[in-house]
């Protein structure tokens, strides 16, 4: 027998009603508790992701709250077979791209690497391995912050949050090839910035 994905309380009285048709505001008690549990479980990573995206603590808090409001509205469509964190980050990334992005202040420096080396690793340009180990979180975060928006988003989603290329593609609504090239280029830019900071800090 196929198992229904609605929670028991919500589906008990109207088992023939499709999940998607459930009334918007009507999360059952269990379902509400489930949502709260999931949100609390992922709040730290959501805030962390929001902070990387917005580069500003107060915008990050706003983004997280807006994301949760949207998620709550859409939660009746969410099934536990989906990865909740990926689903939450998809909402957040879209919200950021569509609304917060417009508020962005600094002009972006998108093109800063020579085309023949696009997306190819080149460790020689970066700090040495032993230097890398000494790199404080502060520098790594600063280097991520320096990345232009479209690169920063994929680096955060992949390297910090660990999502797959396919998951990220769905989040930013771009083909996997685009995710791949942005991510690889983003990493090279990141390495350059780290190199720069390593020199500044006197490690190199």
């Amino acid at each position, binding site marked *: 027998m196929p198992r229904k994905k609605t929670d028991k309380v919500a589906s008990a009285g109207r088992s023939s009603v499709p999940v998607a048709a459930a009334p918007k505001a009507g999360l059952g008690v269990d379902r509400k508790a489930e949502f709260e549990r999931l949100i609390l479980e992922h709040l730290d990573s959501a805030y*962390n992701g929001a902070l990387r995206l917005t580069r500003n603590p107060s915008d990050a808090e706003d983004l997280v709250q807006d994301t949760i409001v949207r998620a*709550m509205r859409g939660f009746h469509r969410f099934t536990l077979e989906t990865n909740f964190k990926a689903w939450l980050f998809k909402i957040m990334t879209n919200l950021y791209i569509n609304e917060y992005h417009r508020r962005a202040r600094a002009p972006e420096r998108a093109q800063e690497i020579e085309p023949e080396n696009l997306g*190819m*690793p080149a460790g020689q340009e970066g700090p040495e391995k032993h230097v890398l180990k000494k790199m404080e979180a502060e520098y790594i975060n600063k280097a991520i912050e320096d990345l232009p928006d479209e690169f920063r988003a994929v680096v955060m989603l992949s*390297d*910090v949050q660990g999502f797959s*290329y396919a998951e990220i593609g769905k989040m930013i609504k771009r083909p996997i090839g685009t995710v*791949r090239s942005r991510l690889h280029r983003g990493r090279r830019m990141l390495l350059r910035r780290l190199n720069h900071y390593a020199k500044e800090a006197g490690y190199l």
Partner: protein
Amino acid sequence: MSRRADYYDCRRALMWLYDYLDGEAPGREKQYVQRHLELCFHCLEEYEFEEELLKLIRQRASKGKAPAALKKRVLKMLRQA
């Protein structure tokens, strides 16, 4: 059966190195990178460097908790809804 000589193209290996590290390289390329790294010390070093870097980014950049005030607001919001 492929020969060793078929796996000596550093450029091809480097092209797929990130995908390989991310577990996203298609089967053929995955095998290519794997074989190449057994043969080419230079690329192996490159691989180890990049692997280290990615690990470091993951460790260092994912730290940090949501501020207590945010958590409080979120909880309040969830319970009022």
